[in-house]
């Protein structure tokens, strides 16, 4: 095995699509969400290294444009199913920073009362059907939610996030077949960050282009530059429209990159520092900030204002989380049954 140099293989890492459009309000919103996520994750890393945050946390830093772009393309009452790398999805779907941060710290004020934690982070009241500690664990849930929508003749859609590594789980095959056969309103959104933990795609599959997997289900598929928030938004919007129109599921592969190691102690021996540098160059926040300024949608000061306020928000959320109490012992036995 040689360390793979994925930067050359990733066809989707194109320059930001200049034709995508967005309003000033939208631009500010996307930027704010991406910055919230980035700073949330950087803070998380900090809290972990200080042992204030315990347990595992799979950080979303680097992939912000995927969650933000995708969720910008759907309605607040639509559903998402998230993954073990779910902080970004939670923030983008409208979770409250305070409660998300508190949840990861296992506090009573967390959105799950401290019972879920990072791996099960979700404010389900926002239409987030949950992060999942089991890789591909959200596929069944998402497919069922889409079935539910269809049976109730609702016009909602579901975005089912999962990783390139998850693609090899059997349940993915079963759910895609079912969703396709029943023409369910679901978007299978593959967050392709080139690795499943330490294993490069080419090390676990002969076929590196996941879009081709959709052929097996007679389902449309495409890929998108996952560093470009507007490109992701527009690609998901197309899929969502298709779903709302009753034309069934689709697969979208968003090519992106995670900045941190898989776990705190991961030396990232399976990837090169050059590859990392390449992707840091294509940082989604940097790219979008530059684009906004360049096209005049936001001024440099306006971008700076978002930057400052988001820093502030994360500091406050952290303080809230740290200051919050642990759950009472009596909580151990609540919520097991409805």
């Amino acid at each position, binding site marked *: 095995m040689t360390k793979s140099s994925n930067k050359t293989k990733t066809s989707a890492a194109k320059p930001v699509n200049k034709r995508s459009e967005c309003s000033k309000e939208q631009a500010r919103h996307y930027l704010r969400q991406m910055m919230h996520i980035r700073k949330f994750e950087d803070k998380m890393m900090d809290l972990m290294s200080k042992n204030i945050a315990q347990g595992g946390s799979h950080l979303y830093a680097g992939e912000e444009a995927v969650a933000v772009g995708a969720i910008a393309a759907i309605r607040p009452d639509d559903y998402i199913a998230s993954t073990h790398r779910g902080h970004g999805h939670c923030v983008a779907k409208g979770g409250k920073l305070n409660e998300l941060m508190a949840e990861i710290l296992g506090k009573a004020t967390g959105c799950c009362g401290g*019972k*879920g934690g990072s791996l099960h982070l979700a404010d389900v009241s926002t239409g987030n059907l*949950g992060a999942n500690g089991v890789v591909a664990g959200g*596929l*069944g849930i998402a497919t069922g*939610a889409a079935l539910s929508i269809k*049976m109730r003749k609702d016009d909602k859609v579901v975005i089912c996030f999962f990783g390139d590594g998850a693609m090899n789980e059997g349940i993915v095959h079963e759910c895609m*077949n*079912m969703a396709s056969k029943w023409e369910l309103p679901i978007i299978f959104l593959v967050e392709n960050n080139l690795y499943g933990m330490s294993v490069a795609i080419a090390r676990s599959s002969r076929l590196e282009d996941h879009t081709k997997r959709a052929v097996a289900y007679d389902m449309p598929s495409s890929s998108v530059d996952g560093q470009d928030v507007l490109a992701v938004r527009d690609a998901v919007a197309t899929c969502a429209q298709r779903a709302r129109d009753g034309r069934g599921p689709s697969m979208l592969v968003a090519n992106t990159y995670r900045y941190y190691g898989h776990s705190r102690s991961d030396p990232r021996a399976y990837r090169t520092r050059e590859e990392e540098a390449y992707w840091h160059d294509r940082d989604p926040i940097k790219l979008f900030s530059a684009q906004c300024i360049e096209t005049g949608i936001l001024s440099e000061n306006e971008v700076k204002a978002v930057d400052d306020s988001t820093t502030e928000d994360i500091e406050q959320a952290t303080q809230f989380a740290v200051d919050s109490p642990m759950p009472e012992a009596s909580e151990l036995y609540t919520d097991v049954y409805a």
Partner: protein
Amino acid sequence: MTAKETKQDQRILTYGQAINEALDQEMARDQSVFVMGEDIAIYGGAYSVTKGLWEKYGDERIRDTGISEGAIVGAGIGAAMTGMRPVVEIMYVDFMTLVMDQLCNQAAKLRYMFGGKIKVPLTIRTEGGAGRTLGAHHSQSLESWFMHIPGIKVVMPATPYDAKGLLLSSIRDDNTVVYIEHKMLYNTKGPVPEGEYTIPIGKAEVKRPGKDVSVFTYSRQLLFCQEAAEELANEGIDVEIVDLRTLLPLDVETIVESVRKTNRAVIVEEDTITGGSGAEIGMRIVEEAFDYLDAPVKRVAGADVPMPKSAALESLAIPSKQSIIKGIREVLQ
């Protein structure tokens, strides 16, 4: 309608028909109920339990799936989380092996993990047990696995009456219920009221009162226990039979009450003995009624082997009237 009243109604149905009727009535009553599984539509289910429902409710609410057990239960969970009350069928309990992640990691835990903010009102109907010489992949009893999953309920009715009432309760329950039928019970008959009625999940029933020894059992083994009790009655041995009906939650109160009365306990289960349901039931008795026990709790259970195909061996691998009688005699010594 109370259980007592309904029992006076003498309409006779088979166990399979009783289940079918429960599904039918609940689908008619509640639009959020639908059925999903393999060969349940035009085929009417491997054991004909869903017969006629597809003709009545159509493809939309009686959903044939591909052979994808994980997706069947997984989609059931997602639908249940978002407003539906799915009843999914896993053709044999042996194939529940394919859905343990969905059942144990998802259905059972989602509510807790999300701080009580969602519920998963899913019913998983499946069918187990030996008796048709189908061999090791179509004859298992895996209920003790499910008993070990906090967050779900486990129901195993033995009579047509209980089958209907407990299925209605299962569908209406806001939690995931694993409802396990027994392949040798489908053609057994008994009185079943026409109307809707529910039986509380978690309540055992004394199917035969007695004073000398308590036998705790469920599902098909109830019938063997009843035969054994009849035979022993001729010798003046008065056996109390408690049909547990629900394994999770377990009705410890009724169990303990019975042991306090008879001072002797036999547990009869078809499950392979080691790590079977009888271990838990037995330990509950030990924990809660030790001082009342005049003899060790006795388990009469399946042999610790994969189910052999041969009829000659299959009948030896599970409890029988004879082995139950032997077990009862043992605790009476």
